[in-house]
């Protein structure tokens, strides 16, 4: 048999109040062991308070070839940022 264990992506919440961040990947035969392996591999130095593991094959990613169509149209929508607006001097709490 000898099929290799699948790949999992690991996300760690480093402390309460922060979101889970991708930290790396690992191999595991199933979800239960993937979670435990993630604990042993990625939180040995108190790096986390919560873990997610996701099968790498389940990640749906945007295509770098479509990057222009995906992300460039946001370039000229500067009105979405607060610094776009002029505020008269002396106005507070705005």
């Amino acid at each position, binding site marked *: 048999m000898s099929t290799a264990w699948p790949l999992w992506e690991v996300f760690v919440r480093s402390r309460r109040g922060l979101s889970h961040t991708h930290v*790396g990947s690992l191999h595991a*035969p*199933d979800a239960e062991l993937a979670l435990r392996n993630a604990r042993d591999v990625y939180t040995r130095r108190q790096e986390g308070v919560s873990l997610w593991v996701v099968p790498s094959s389940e990640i749906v990613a945007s295509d*770098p070839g479509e990057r222009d169509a995906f992300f460039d149209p946001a370039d000229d929508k500067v009105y979405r940022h607060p610094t776009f607006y002029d505020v008269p001097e002396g106005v507070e709490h705005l």
Partner: protein
Amino acid sequence: MSFDDLLADDGRVEPRDEMPDAYRRTLIRQIAQHAHSEIIGMQPEGNWISRAPSLRRKAILMAKVQDEAGHGLYLYAAAETLGVERADLLDQLHTGRQKYSSIFNYPTLSWADVGAIGWLVDGAAIVNQVPLCRCSYGPYARAMVRVCKEESFHQRQGFEILHTLAHGTPEQHAMAQDAVDRYWWPSLMMFGPPDDSSPNSAQSMAWGIKRFSNDDLRRRFVDMTVPQAEILGLTLPDPDIRWSEERGHYDFGPIDFTELGEVIAGNGPCNRDRMAHRVGAHEAGAWVRDAATAYEAKRAARAEGAA
């Protein structure tokens, strides 16, 4: 943005970007070799876990060898983003088609060797690895950030071991000196051949995989290490080491690369033992890996049946 524009802009290449085949192949080979070095590197130090002379040292050493497994794992994962599988890379290691760092083909003959590996070998590795944190390939650079963060404890614990031995009994001092005598030259060779005979370096520099030349890094290591040796009270086995006011660096004697050639060719003191250990563990674990795969297949089939 094209690959060339990205590099010109000192940007990072990410896994699904287009990249030249040669760039991909070079990265796979280098990252795999780096990963192999980490896991083979578990053996020379692992050789002393059972015999560590105090329980504190035993705990530190276990944690350190464990870190090396972790570093190997991070690096294999980085290589896998380039479209290869860890199992295939391990197979190439086991069949001798990919190499690991020759330094790990030297034996650890005394406890002081554990100190010398931490101080010199990990010290040299850090000098090599810090620039890799800015490597043009994102996943490799990120793996190296993690590795370097963890590696700094490795070098310190090695220095501490040697410092304690060098200030201990005469026998301990002699043990420390002997270890440094044996590990000094092989550590210098970890930086690779001299720049004028390093054929792939120029391309790797152009690709932003390599940031400094072999000789630059080697010089940096010597400059860093010589004053530390003085603090340890140990001598480095090179009568030509002296400070050059004019160059602002330490001069050191010529490196005899013939031995390195022999070790790379497979004739080092431990080449066969290291491979036998590694392959033996992998083969002995096959039934365990298969069992876990079979268990998950049964579980998935049950879940399917229940649905």
